[in-house]
């Protein structure tokens, strides 16, 4: 089977642009309260979202999500030592919950109209045009798990021999419709994004993008790259086939996705989990239970890193950013401290270390991503070359 490496990462979040900025924020583990979008038409009780700072994205691309995606992609390519213009079979796979919804929303009103009608889901297309080469290109809209489905699709493309290198991940930006709908569903926490807290009251959206360069070991070696950040050693997909918003209560399908990813990876345990962990009551309880079923007794002691507490729920970008965070954890061999909770929820029996980093004692990280409609994916990333690039 094709050995798939992560050889470059790029990140944009409310903490600014760059994987280094993300890692600094992870190490600092400070509580950050959400922002309010400058949108006078957003009539809703809780217009809360973690916004990417305005001065951290280039303005030359149409739409914020495209700006985030290109920024993260450019960083990932640089990090991998690529330009995107190599004469190789290149692919782009972008996951997004909302696409460029912000542009569509702006175009509906004269005061904010831009360049007229255009398809909402053009992030992959935009990245492809930005790269400028002929290649594979795919747009995946699997809600909040879109970024991980994009990553898995990239792995499958490599395994099927369709491409040599893939730029994969997710991006999402502020959408008035999405935030309004989350308000209507009573799913916005009025305080902050605080998964696994006893007093959590929903999630808080965030903006951002996480992009990764994936390639076969053979291809990486041929261009002189000995080791990557990580190997993608296991992937698993499932679907609840249950309800538009609520997870299937028993967690059978999210357990199955984890087990498939772990089995493919060799099932030797993991040193850290980046859970989906949104902050909604049911998600966190269901995922905690499923982790115990998938990992067994180790579930109570494996450190979890709750990324959404730091950057909010970035929708289709969430798992792209989580995969970048996992790559950084493997590189530094440490699980950063979690953003402190006010009161951990005893109904979620998981370990969330705070205060100081935890040494990564097993060189494998499990990343979970779940989306509305019960669309689930899990991935295992393993250190490559001892985690040292």
């Amino acid at each position, binding site marked *: 089977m094709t050995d798939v490496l992560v050889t470059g990462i790029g990140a944009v979040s409310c903490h600014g642009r760059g994987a280094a900025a993300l890692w600094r924020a992870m190490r600092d583990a400070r509580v950050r309260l959400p922002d309010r979008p400058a949108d006078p038409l957003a009539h809703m009780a809780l217009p809360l979202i973690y916004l990417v700072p305005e001065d951290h994205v280039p303005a030359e691309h149409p739409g914020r999500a495209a700006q985030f995606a290109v920024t993260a992609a450019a960083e990932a390519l640089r990090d991998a030592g690529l330009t995107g213009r190599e004469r190789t079979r290149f692919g782009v796979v972008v996951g997004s919950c909302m696409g460029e919804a912000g542009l569509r929303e702006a175009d509906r009103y004269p005061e904010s109209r831009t360049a007229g009608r255009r398809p*909402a889901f053009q992030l992959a297309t935009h990245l492809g045009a930005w790269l400028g*080469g002929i*290649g594979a290109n*795919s747009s995946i809209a699997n809600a909040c798990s879109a970024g991980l489905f994009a990553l898995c699709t990239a792995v499958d493309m490599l395994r099927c021999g369709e491409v040599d290198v893939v730029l994969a991940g997710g991006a999402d930006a502020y*959408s008035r419709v999405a935030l*309004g709908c989350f308000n*209507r569903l009573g799913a916005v926490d009025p305080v902050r994004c605080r998964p696994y807290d006893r007093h959590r009251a929903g999630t808080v959206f965030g903006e951002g993008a996480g992009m990764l360069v994936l390639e076969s070991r053979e291809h990486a070696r041929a261009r002189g790259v000995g080791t990557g950040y990580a190997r993608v050693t296991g992937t698993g997909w499932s679907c609840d086939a249950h309800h538009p918003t609520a997870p299937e209560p028993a967690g059978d399908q999210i357990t199955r996705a984890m087990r498939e990813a772990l*089995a493919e990876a060799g099932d030797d345990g993991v040193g850290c989990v980046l859970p989906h962990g949104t902050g909604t009551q049911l998600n966190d309880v269901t995922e905690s239970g499923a982790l115990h079923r998938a990992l067994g007794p180790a579930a109570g002691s494996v450190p979890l890193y709750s990324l959404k507490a730091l950057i909010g729920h970035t929708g289709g970008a969430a798992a792209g950013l989580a995969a970048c965070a996992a790559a950084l954890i493997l590189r530094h061999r440490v699980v950063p401290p979690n953003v402190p909770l006010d009161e951990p929820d005893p109904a979620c029996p998981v370990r969330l270390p705070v205060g100081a980093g935890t040494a990564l004692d097993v060189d494998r990280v499990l990343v979970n991503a779940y989306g509305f*409609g019960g669309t689930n994916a899990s991935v295992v990333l393993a250190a490559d070359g001892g985690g040292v690039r």
Partner: protein
Amino acid sequence: MSAPVGSSRTTPDGDVRPAGAPATGAVAPDVVVTGIGVVAPGRPGEPWFDPRAELGGRGYRYAPAATRYLLAATRRAIVDGGRLDRLPPERRGAAVATNGGLEPLFAEMDRTVTGADATELSPALAPYFAINVLGTRLVAEHQLKGFHLTLTSPRVAGFEAVEAGWRALAVGRCDTLLVGVTEDGAEQGAVALVLERAGAAAGPGHGRLRAATLFVPPSAVSDRVRLTAALDRAFDRLAPRPAPATPGNLTTAGTPATLASPVELFGDGSPVADAVGAAVAELTGVNPVPRPVGAGCLAPMLRTARLFAGPPGEHRLVVATAEGNVAVVRVSVAAPAIREES
């Protein structure tokens, strides 16, 4: 009977891989289209969709139109012979495609938020802000628990779904696949296809369908050599059991690019579509028949369904858009006499 959760994954060859065993490499699957369902307008002004008659009860009154079209098309595909229940729910996948399926709903919800308040939104429709939710009732109704992918590339998303589903079959993520395309607004209607592994299906069904997508940036259309080579590789992937991709190889006799079959081009008059059309003509030796592409991804899939309803033979479709999204497709229609046996 369902397989125990997480106990195994079935390989593309049908072998059950025990938990912990290494995954196989990708194996090109041989799949046949066993059921086709179409819900689409007929003559202008004529009623064409009665949700109560199609879906029973209140006709999923609180679901968006695109969801109802998709549900109805899938039910028709099953009546047509597609079997989604031959295998456990965990082995059934869904690849759903849309471009603007929920655009009318998004516009309405935005008007509500901007003109009134989010509290005025329908709680039944609020989850549909995530476009993949339009397929949730479908996967619940047919217990498609393998996966549910939603593909959205401009105009080619239907064939992107065929390709993604085929890839999922190749790496063992499912054994039966539902491909659905649905649109509402500027294009309306849905197409559903049931694809089963040839060895597991009761017969050859309607035939075979393969698709390969690629991206041709508008800035690259003048590079005719690279464009032609890329299209040639895409055609190569349409073979039932393609050889491993070999970059740079040009067409050899007998590949899908040189089949003695018509070629239809769904283009939008853009430089990309024109360049792709010219390159396809050079590769295949056939001038493509121009077809109108719609606002979404439905029109080429409707044509595919119609081809499967026609006489046996080989057909090739090409979609090319101003944005740069391109698809090449091979439709191999089985002989009616054989089809009846299934």
